[in-house]
């Protein structure tokens, strides 16, 4: 029987927003094809309430591929597990989210499943002649590319924040184990330790709102207003390349062409001029607010809202205004 399979990525014992986005994409695609959605969980064990969560977002069946050696993500082992499952059940379609791990695993999966790979697409594939077409962003947000394939199995990765997770509860969900033992070859690149940075913070790649600071803030001691604005908005913090290069902020906060590429719902740029390399990493944000004291800053050209003002003067007032609004509208 045919289905749309989706890799239900587990991170720190839970399903992240990116997994729910992938599930929603799989549900939408499966509905168009008249197929069920099979959510595949790979690991040592499944998170609590796995079936409830996955069924809530549209899974008809939960496939568990569990093995002690799959406790840590190893791209080769996970890709082999998924490829073995797709082959055993002749599943023609698979969806992953384009997270760090999804990006690592999908190309290997596509080779071992002898499939085609559409990566970083921003909408569910649509039927077109004998195959499927989909859109992705190209040339640093300067173009949209329509891609086509009629090769099956078809593996797709969904760009982060391209799809809003939508509840689509299924009346019943079944569960099934798929037996898989990774080979020694698949386990060669072994994780031996993890260094977490600021686990209480929202990861940049997942954040719906990002507050970002640049050289206009004049020094690391002035980042308090960025942190506080991020806190009242429930946002992640980021910075421009020069700021990371001089060490005012850690490198993992650098967004832009050589840093992290993001597309949050709201990007607030404070004291960032908007060099083209910076825009390449953030220009697909759905709403952009620019605060800069230089009215000629190129960032204003791509902004939805702009404030020409001194950040040190206007940001504290913005924080107060948001607090006031939230106090008046929260019950």
């Amino acid at each position, binding site marked *: 029987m045919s289905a749309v399979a989706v890799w239900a990525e587990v991170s720190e014992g839970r399903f992240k927003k990116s997994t729910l986005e992938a599930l929603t994409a799989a549900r939408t695609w499966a509905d168009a094809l008249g197929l069920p959605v099979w959510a595949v969980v790979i690991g040592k064990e499944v998170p609590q309430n796995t079936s409830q969560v996955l069924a809530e977002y549209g899974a008809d069946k939960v496939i568990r591929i569990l093995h002690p050696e799959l406790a840590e993500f190893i791209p080769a082992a996970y890709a082999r597990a998924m490829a073995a499952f797709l082959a055993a059940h002749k599943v023609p379609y698979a969806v992953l989210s384009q997270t760090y791990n999804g990006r690592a695993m999908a190309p290997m999966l596509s080779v*071992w499943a002898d499939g085609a790979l559409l990566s970083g697409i921003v909408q569910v594939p649509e039927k077109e002649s004998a195959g499927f077409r989909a859109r992705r962003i190209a040339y640093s947000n300067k173009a949209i*590319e329509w891609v086509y*394939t009629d090769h099956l199995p078809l593996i797709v990765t969904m760009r982060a924040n391209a799809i809003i997770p939508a509840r689509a509860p299924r009346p019943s969900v079944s569960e099934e184990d798929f037996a898989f033992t990774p080979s020694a070859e698949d386990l060669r*690149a072994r994780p031996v330790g993890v260094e977490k*940075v600021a686990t209480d913070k929202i990861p940049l790649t997942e954040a719906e709102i990002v507050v970002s600071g640049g050289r206009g803030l004049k020094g690391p001691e002035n980042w308090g207003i960025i942190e506080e604005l991020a806190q009242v908005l429930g946002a992640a913090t980021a910075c421009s390349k020069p700021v990371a290069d001089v060490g005012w902020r850690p490198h993992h906060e650098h967004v832009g062409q050589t840093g992290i590429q993001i597309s949050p719902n709201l990007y607030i740029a404070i004291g960032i001029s908007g060099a083209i390399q910076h825009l390449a990493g953030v220009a697909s944000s759905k709403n952009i607010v620019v605060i800069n004291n230089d009215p000629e800053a190129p960032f204003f050209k791509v902004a939805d*809202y702009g404030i020409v003002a001194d950040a040190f003067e206007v940001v504290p007032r913005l924080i107060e205004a948001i607090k006031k609004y*939230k106090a008046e509208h929260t019950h």
Partner: protein
Amino acid sequence: MKILCCISHVPDTTTRIQFSADGTQLDRTGVTFIVNPYDDFVLARAAELKEKNPSGVHVTVLCVGKNGASSTDNVDSNLRKALALGLDEAVRIDALPVDGYFVANQIAAYAEKQGFDLLFFGKESIDYNGSQVPGMVAALLNLPYISYATSIEIAGQKAVLTREITGGKERIESPLPLVLSAQKGLAEWRIPNVRGIMQAKTKPLHVLPPVEVTPRVQTLRHELPPAKGPFKKIDPDKIEELVQELANKGLI
């Protein structure tokens, strides 16, 4: 130790992007092509390893591509720029990179017979950001794959790496040979010196024919992104207007 650095030939970020009339091809006229910025990290790391052990390390730079008509669109000159960092030889596989599957198969077919210990890639190319090729090459050659690597140290036939993950870093140990895709941090970008540039002119650059591979994904057409919504300037003395605008969009 033999290292292969695979690089992409991509339009400079600052360049204007235009397409052929039917939208299927990039119009290469007047476009300046550069070495993909993420590939510069692996070239720099390979140059560091070569410097530490000049006689024991051999670095090959490879690109799948065809030279364009203009001097700013020449794969060979980008390969020479890479060689100018002190690397040994270059290979150009003479074919247009149609899709990730096609390119990965070209690289795998070449690398298969060469016995490389390290296969280095940038984490993605800035034209399509697909992150497809390094993982596909690893799968085709059945080699360990470490993506988003921010460091690599080698001791004997083993490597210790760090890899970027959501909210942190992961340490990984792997035997050689391995495939790595680089994130910023792997090494500091380098600028070739005059001596390197002079020497690069006479280093070997082999042009090889492609192997026969049927691409699996094709480009139907390109479009320009939808126009931005209207820009609204907010008076700094009426900051509440911005809060209201954002609230109306459900962002607060």
